[in-house]
């Protein structure tokens, strides 16, 4: 932290980092849960996740980063086979 802040003072520059706006996963009211059996690995949820919180892995499966997922539900809305369910937080 200290080295970054001193650089910041010197160059008035910010550096890329995950969570620059905080641990946004805490904003979530509904959590997207992916049903791996139903998923056809199309990648659309990854494409349309505004938060970049979905990884589309080498084997084309998808995983959600719950530290930052804001629970907007777009992944569930765009999934062509209904493989993403939005579950109320705290229920799991």
């Amino acid at each position: 932290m200290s080295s970054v802040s001193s650089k910041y003072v010197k160059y008035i520059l910010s550096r890329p980092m995950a969570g620059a706006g905080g641990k946004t996963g805490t904003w979530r009211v509904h959590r997207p849960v992916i049903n791996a059996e139903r998923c056809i690995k199309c990648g659309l949820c990854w494409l349309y996740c505004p938060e970049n919180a979905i990884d589309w892995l080498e084997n084309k499966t998808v995983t959600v980063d719950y530290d930052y997922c804001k629970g907007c539900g777009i992944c569930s809305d765009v999934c062509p086979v209904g493989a993403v369910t939005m579950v109320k937080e705290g229920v799991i």
Partner: protein
Amino acid sequence: MVTINELHRYGRTKLIMPGTSACPGCPLQLGMRYLAMALDARFAMVIPAGCSSVIPGAAPYTAFTVPVMHVPFASSPAVASGLRRALRIRGVDGPVVVWAGDGASADIGFASLSGSAYRNEDIIYILADNEAYMNTGIQASGTTPPKAWTTTSPRGKTEGRKDMSLIMIMHNVPYVATASIAYPMDFIDKVRRAASIRGFRFIHLHAPCPPGWKFPDNYTVRVARLAVETGMWILWEYNQGKLTISSPSVPYKDKGRRKPIEEYLKLQGRFSHLTKEDVEVIKANVDKQWDLIIRLTEIYR
């Protein structure tokens, strides 16, 4: 057209770091991700005041992984013009992109936008249009559609809408296009095509905003897609003298194939006060716009 399989290589790449300050379901983040994919994350960005100044989070950190200059409202095209020239002197040939909202483009920054377009500065200007001043609390802008509720038009906007992309064609610039966050492949293709040309390039990106338009967070893509499917938003491209309707919008040239406009309007709280007559006016505007664009495709052949 680029395919999703080609984009798979960005599958784990964080072109925008997660954990931003944007609202859930923000369309601007979608647009910026696609922009970064289109240019392979090799470009510099200039951002005037707006949601996109706040989205990257708090210093000394940022969610953006490309060099970004945050500049005052009206100055972005001027800053970008200078930046482009400075980079060229240093022997750097990467694109300089202005990422601006509708307030910064259609109203407050219009003079400098018009100036840099008329000088044909070598920049790409992306107008990410969420159709109001969202960051300051949903005030109407020059591109807010007529009849839409905003905090400064509580009974629906009484003025019309500035047609920014057609205004830019009239500046005699080489490239102007419209795009939508619901059609990323079309948008990415357009950014790449624009990047292959020199001079002033303008892309008008439709970006439905959940809190500003009053629809649920998960409907961002759905609303953007309906705008195209109902004919409310027409995807077209003007490339060095030739204007064409882009493939996602081609079927809707035929009025009979457009979805009913009510489907688009009813999802949005900002249109919940509309009367039947209001809807008829909006429909007439859509037909008029299509007539105009189709005629322009005949003129700019």
